[in-house]
């Protein structure tokens, strides 16, 4: 369970998040919506302790993320996968090597270097299985910069899954693809997260996708939560309309 207790985040005089109180239960599929600058990425940054709250607390399974350091913080992070907006892939490496980076915490430095240089047969098979699940198993040995935008997003999802996380944080991962591809990717990610009973927190601009695939929609504006409810909530469309 992830709890925000009056969590605020400021960058100098700029307030990115203003006293957020939220609880996200394990296995929940949560979508963050709101205009650019609403604080969605900042909220995701607090979820895995990438950014510490300037006041208040973010508590994950009874552990205050702001107080964790060193090994303990790494331990917690190894259970949370993050898919940033630009996907964070290494373009000149093969798909298999990029996916292997998902296990950086467990493998350690030398283990990861070994995977990058001489990946064993068993690991190749595991990676291949994951890629099959996201629909691009035939691209396992392609360089990432030879792939289309949609295929790259699937690689980023496979890397997140390889980590075997309890929670996936995805920051507008479909912002750079056409609506049809965006739909299939969101469907894929939510389906896998449900099957694996993972918590999924994803920020999106598309309110239709939010309503269609998620259990819960959180609307944000100017660093505050302005809506928190089920996808069928009438306020969701209202928020969307006001933002246009």
């Amino acid at each position, binding site marked *: 369970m992830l709890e925000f207790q009056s969590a605020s985040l400021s960058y100098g005089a700029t307030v990115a998040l203003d006293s957020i109180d939220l609880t996200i239960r394990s296995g929940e599929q949560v979508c963050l919506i709101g205009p650019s600058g609403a604080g969605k990425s900042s909220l995701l940054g607090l979820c895995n302790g990438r950014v510490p709250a300037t006041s208040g607390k973010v508590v994950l399974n009874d552990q205050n993320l702001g107080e964790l350091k060193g090994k303990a913080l790494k331990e917690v992070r190894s259970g949370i996968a993050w898919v940033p907006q630009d996907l964070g892939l290494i373009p000149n490496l093969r798909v298999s090597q990029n996916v292997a980076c998902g296990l950086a915490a467990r493998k350690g*430095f030398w283990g990861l270097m070994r995977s990058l240089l001489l990946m064993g047969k068993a690991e190749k098979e595991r990676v291949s299985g994951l890629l099959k699940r996201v629909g691009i198993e035939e691209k396992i040995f392609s360089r990432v910069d030879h792939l289309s935008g949609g295929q790259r997003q699937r690689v980023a999802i496979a890397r997140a899954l390889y980590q075997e996380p309890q929670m996936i944080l995805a920051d507008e991962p479909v912002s750079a693809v056409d609506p049809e591809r965006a739909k299939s990717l969101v469907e894929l990610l939510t389906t896998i997260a449900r099957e694996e009973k993972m918590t999924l927190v994803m920020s999106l601009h598309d309110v239709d996708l939010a309503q269609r695939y998620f259990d819960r929609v959180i609307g944000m504006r100017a660093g505050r939560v302005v809506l928190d409810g089920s996808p069928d909530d009438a306020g969701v469309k209202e928020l969307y309309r006001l933002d246009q």
Partner: protein
Amino acid sequence: MRRRWFFLGAIALFFWGLWVLEVRPGQLIPSEGGREAAGDFLSAAFQPALDYEELDMRGGEVSFLGKIGKALWLTVRYAVVAMSLAFVIGVIGGVLGSRAWWSKPNLFLQVLRIGTRLLATAIRSVHELMWALLFLSAVGTSPLVAILAMALPYGGTLAKVFSELLDESESSAGAVIRASGGSGTTAFFAGVVTKALPDLATYALYRLECAVRSSAVLGFVGIPTIGYEIKTAYEDGHYHEIWSYVYALLIVVVLFEAWGAKVRGLLTKGTPSRVGEEKGQSLSELWQGRGRSWFLRFSVATLTVGIAAGWMAEDRWGAGVGWEQREKNLDRFTDEMVPYPVREADGDWSVFGSWFSEKMSDGGAVALWRTFHVGTTAILLAGGLSLIGILFAARTLAASNPRGVRDGGSKIRGLLGMFLRGASMLARAMPEYILAFLLLRVFGPTYWVLIFALAIHNGGILLRLGAEVIDNTKSQASEVILAQGGNRSSAYLAAMMPAGFNRLVLFLFYRWESCIREATVLGMLGVASLGFLISDAKVAFFYDEMILWVGLGAALVFVGDLTSDFVRGKLRTVE
């Protein structure tokens, strides 16, 4: 408006430089005796020697072609071995100097990082020829001197550029690894270094091409590379042999450049898979058909073997003079590198100031000033000529349908473009020092020679880079001009050059720092500038003066480097 001021400033600086250097067009006409010698020298270019010019030389153990081969082998070997050492220096310095490595630095680590970068810049500010002279003076001749003389400045250059490339490669890939619990070291190597790898390898290969040229030039201070054979052939009056060595060197450098370009392309773009990558294929089928380049593998293997062979082929790295003599040389050098009045005053450094002032007013300041102007005037000439050349050399302008607009013009322009691109390749391949050495034979000891040598080499580089900029610049305005009946010159001057202007200026500054660096040593050929003072002091065994002039040259290059870095940084932010 800014462009106009830039051009006016550049023209003013160019003519100011000519005035400071007191050069006149009349100096380009050799005297009658000089004309004859220059004629003999130039005509020999069309008849390079295939055998020794003097019959009694044929009795030697090695044929002339064998001698060329041996000189080339040594040139390439010293370059490869020196680069392998420079690469290690570059990697260590590059990582320590990179912001990406120190994710959350405290004040001490910040100082360490900036200190590493400044040290790298300082080491590269001393030209490899100067390092060679310093080592030769300190310990005497040996193959190791050649290696160290190249490895130090090249290591400094690699460290500086590597740290910049690593910083540019910092991206969310490393952040994702850290965010998923990976350590900072793992995130740096897996997320930053792997991403930067093609750029790091590309730059190292480019420096290897430069090292081959530098290795040749080291021959002029007694290292047995091809430059040594060129110098000896000149001293013996064997002009035909000189050209044979020059052509052989050109062929090797051009081959290195072509090989480097092919490897760079493969590293950057990768190789597509050889199978259709269809669903249902087994893992082993996909693995067998993965994109891989045999050329790249062969190149890596050859380079590895080449480095190992380069180190192992020399069984006497310290050869030349005995160790006892070396110790004596080193003692003398370290004693005498202390300024003479300081030595006389039993180590009292308070007298240094008056000695320094005396040396500066006794020719040092003038030499420094002239060295600056040689480099600056040369790069402005190179820039001006390349701006004109780009109009004919850029592929998109030289094509029969410029910028895709049907023109129906003759093919002469295309041929001229090909000729210019070929000429620029040869100009790039020829080391400035050897070019100046050859031009001295034609024009005699005048500053024109230094300016021309630098301008030809750097003009070749700027022409290539500039033509690529123009070819890659998206400019619909140029297409409109051409479609409305305008000619290529109008499209180039009115649309394409303004669009690519910042990048062209960026390259000009990048080469300016290199010109200043080269200008500090060209005087060693006998034209009064810093290099002249250095070789003069070396011949007279005035090590204190030698160190002073080397230090001044390094300071000039250091300031030039920082200025160029600053201007290029500004230009990048404007872009």
